[in-house]
């Protein structure tokens, strides 16, 4: 990215009065050094708003308006005063010299030639473009919005609100990460709803399916460890020997994508030995006996062992242990369902939980995630479209937004006509880095007339944008955060003033609204006033109040609160399916073209030309394209590597440290090899991340293959990220 020297210096010299010209040296003295004065040291409550199980409670230490360090909030009962390595690097994000400081425009797009513009000019340009497209096409449908999990703070749904307030737009609908499992649990239980993770201490047996808590949900470890201290056995099932798997009492290196077959094998053995909790299964579900028949007719241990590569005696061992140890908990990871049969595999594992009576029990459960604590008002998101807005007539005859598949974004954007998509608005999202088929994404961006991105760093998506609007970090904003794993909700205070000229999504929305209405009265319904704290206050409702036992959101400033829910999900047996029971036989699934029962669906086989499976899971250093680019992280983890089994490496003449080209017909990447026996000879592993100033991206080789489920609950099927097949050669 070439930022012209003059522009940058000119930019920094003209820094707004309130935004200090920051230098890392201002941070250097420790706030705990004995000789340091604690004068003017303030603390604030924050919550990490990232797409992460742990969603940590944080305490920020601010002195003289400068964030000195960030620590964990000891009052948070799940994160218990500790952060992960990423959380500790936050000062480097807030004060990074690479941070986008001002609205900037790039002429031409992709050239790296950025000039600073004022907020007024930015809003003017954007508003004029929106109105021009509206006039040209008769609607705001040519504007496509893609937002996801860069910041999961509730007030950040103001980004969606921005779009709703200008009319009906094209929306990237869906979620890439976890929809197959969500649908599976939706078909089975009515929705996804996991036990309180703190309840895992009560488990006497734990199975982690394709879940790497050590690196992606580390705060759950102490609870798992406590269970083990009390005698629980930990079984980890994963094609890759992860850090979590390294801790297991029993690690099973399963053949990728065959977890459902393993669960079926276990189920058959449990059935044969009559370890079934018939009472629970028959009283709480429909279709159980039908499934039992399927097991009797179609499933044998032979078959399961052959499919999964797991020896029969092991299948028998874990089946017996899981069925007879009470209570037994299963944690289904998101990695496990990133296959074309991922959703179906989750359904099978659900059924396994039901058959053993582990659903609805403390220390048990088939735990995937939950959204029970997310019942906010979404006030920032809810704005009516302006009068006379033209929209897309949906299958239900109603006029509204036009939805495209977030998980096939490049293709779907290009495929729209009547009207075509001409403009993109991106917030909390980095498709340039995170979406499958990076080459296709690049082409699609290039075909747009105008791209606006709200972000903090000049990442790949920003590099392909016309205008970048600088986003605040969560320390510079008011918000409220829930988690999709633990049961706590926390308030996030504005600890420091927004750096430079950054703004939050709602502040941007308010500015845009003002500008649009000035140009064309009534063209935007987004409110034009409201302090950040007022926006947060508006998100609370009696439901949230009673869930947390508070009467005012300000009580959360004293500390985060845990939702008043039973430790075990589904303890009340009130399932949310159409039949109000667990639907082992799901008519809804059948209606959607899926098997009604949790039966085996074939996994994807490697094509002959590309025989090697390329896993791209999540490392501890980054959260998607965040954190890895920071200077501390670059020192700790300077370059990407691909993990290759020595047997596979020898086949291609690759030695430790060699540069390897990984390719298929979509694209290629070049990366250093690390030989390790923690993967298998069929699977190579490289962690998805954005390294500073690097164009390295595993997604150049990744096809947007859909997983089998996701449409029902999230609008679109997910991406089978781990069904990516490649070839390798020494580069």
């Amino acid at each position: 990215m070439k930022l012209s020297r003059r522009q940058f210096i000119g930019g920094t010299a003209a820094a707004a009065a309130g935004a200090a010209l920051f230098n890392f040296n201002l941070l250097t003295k420790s706030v705990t050094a004995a000789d340091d004065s604690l004068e003017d040291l303030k603390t604030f409550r924050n919550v990490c708003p990232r797409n992460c199980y742990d969603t940590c409670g944080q305490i920020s230490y601010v002195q003289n308006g400068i964030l000195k360090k960030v620590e964990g909030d000891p009052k948070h009962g799940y994160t218990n005063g500790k952060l992960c390595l990423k959380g500790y690097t936050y000062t480097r994000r807030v004060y990074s010299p690479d941070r986008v400081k001002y609205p900037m425009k790039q002429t031409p797009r992709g050239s790296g030639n950025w000039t600073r513009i004022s907020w007024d000019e930015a809003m003017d340009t954007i508003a004029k473009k929106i109105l021009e497209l509206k006039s040209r096409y008769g609607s705001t449908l040519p504007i496509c919005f893609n937002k996801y999990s860069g910041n999961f703070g509730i007030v950040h749904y103001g980004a969606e609100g921005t779009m709703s307030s200008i009319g009906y737009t094209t929306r990237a609908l869906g979620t890439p990460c976890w929809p197959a499992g969500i649908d599976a649990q939706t078909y089975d239980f009515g929705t996804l709803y996991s036990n309180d993770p703190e309840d895992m201490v009560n488990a006497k047996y734990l199975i982690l399916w394709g879940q790497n808590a050590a690196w992606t949900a580390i705060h759950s470890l102490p609870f798992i460890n406590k269970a083990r201290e009390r005698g629980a056995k930990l079984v980890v099932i994963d094609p890759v020997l992860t850090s979590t798997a390294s801790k297991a009492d029993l690690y099973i290196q399963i053949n990728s994508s065959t977890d459902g077959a393993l669960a079926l094998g276990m189920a058959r053995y449990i059935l044969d030995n009559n370890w079934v909790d018939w009472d629970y299964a028959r009283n709480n579900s429909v279709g159980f006996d039908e499934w039992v028949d399927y097991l009797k007719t179609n499933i044998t241990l032979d078959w399961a062992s052959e499919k999964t590569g797991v020896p029969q005696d092991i299948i028998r061992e874990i089946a017996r242990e899981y069925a007879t140890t009470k209570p037994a908990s299963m944690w289904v990871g998101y990695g496990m369902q990133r296959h074309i049969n991922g959703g179906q595999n989750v359904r099978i594992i659900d059924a396994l939980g039901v058959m053993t009576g582990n659903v609805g029990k403390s220390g048990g459960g088939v735990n995937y995630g939950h959204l029970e604590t997310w019942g906010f008002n979404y006030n920032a998101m809810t704005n009516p479209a302006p009068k006379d807005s033209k929209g897309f007539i949906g299958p239900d005859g109603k006029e509204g937004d036009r939805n495209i598949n977030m998980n096939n974004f490049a293709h779907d954007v290009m495929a729209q006509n009547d009207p075509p998509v001409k403009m993109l608005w991106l917030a909390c999202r980095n498709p340039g880095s995170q979406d499958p088929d990076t080459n296709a994404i690049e082409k699609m961006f290039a075909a747009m007339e105008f791209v606006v991105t709200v972000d903090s760093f000049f990442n790949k998506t920003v590099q392909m944008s016309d205008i970048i609007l600088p986003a605040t970090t969560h320390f510079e904003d008011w918000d409220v955060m829930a988690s999709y794993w633990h049961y706590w909700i926390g308030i996030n205070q504005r600890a420091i003033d927004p750096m430079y000229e950054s703004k939050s999504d709602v502040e941007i929305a308010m500015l845009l609204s003002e500008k649009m209405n000035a140009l064309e009265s009534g063209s935007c319904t987004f409110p034009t006033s409201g302090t950040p704290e007022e926006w947060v206050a508006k998100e609370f409702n009696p439901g949230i109040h009673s869930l947390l036992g508070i009467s005012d959101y300000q009580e959360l400033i004293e500390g985060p609160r845990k939702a008043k829910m039973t430790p075990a999900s589904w303890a009340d047996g009130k399932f949310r399916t159409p039949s109000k029971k667990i639907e082992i036989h799901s008519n809804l699934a059948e209606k959607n073209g899926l098997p009604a029962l949790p039966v085996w669906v074939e996994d994807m086989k490697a094509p002959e030309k590309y025989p090697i499976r390329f896993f791209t899971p999540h490392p501890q250093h980054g959260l998607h394209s965040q954190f890895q680019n920071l200077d501390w992280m670059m020192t700790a983890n300077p370059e990407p590597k691909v993990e290759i089994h020595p047997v596979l490496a020898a086949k291609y003449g690759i030695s430790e440290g060699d540069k390897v080209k990984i390719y298929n017909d979509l694209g290629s990447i070049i990366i250093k090899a690390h030989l390790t026996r923690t993967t298998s000879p069929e699977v190579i592993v490289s962690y998805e991340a954005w390294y500073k100033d690097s164009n390295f991206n595993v997604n150049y080789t990744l096809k947007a293959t859909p997983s089998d489920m996701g449409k029902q609950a999230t609008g679109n099927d997910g991406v089978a990220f781990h069904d990516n097949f490649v070839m390798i050669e020494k580069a």
Partner: protein
Amino acid sequence: MTKQLGFLHNSEKCVGCQGCEMACKNEYQTDATPRWRQVFQLREEDYSLPTRMFFSMACNHCANPECLRVCPVKAYTKREDGIVVHDHDRCIGCRLCLMACPYDRPQFNLDKKKVEKCNLCYQRIDKGEKPACVAACIPEALQLVEINDALDQKMGVLKTIPGLPGPDITHPAIRFIGPKQGKQIRRD
């Protein structure tokens, strides 16, 4: 020296998350390149089964610190509790301690042109708090301990682990609990 404070690192619990590394950096807001505490991954071939195993090392506050011996300006002092403190103000950046330490723990800061290293958070310890790294370790793999015979006689406590310089050079105040491997069903 009335006692020797040091670290006990448990590779059975450590998951290589590098939280300790970053907690240290967060506490002192160190510059980008010096790594006062560093997490290392153990070599697979040193153990019977391959797993991901780690150890974390900061300054070892050795009983016979080479850094202290060679330093021409007496920038290093060893406290009564065994902590080896580096006085940043006295340092003249001669880098002899870098040459002398078998663990490469003193770090040369290219901007400040001085050495810096872990001081066992003595400021926190004097206030009765744990070092930042120990306080941050989520699996509780890193502990602050007193190195003494009682500790060394405990089951499973090792003076060194594969890949480390022999402890007889400087008698580092660090003890280890080695990684444990469970049963593995493997595809190779």
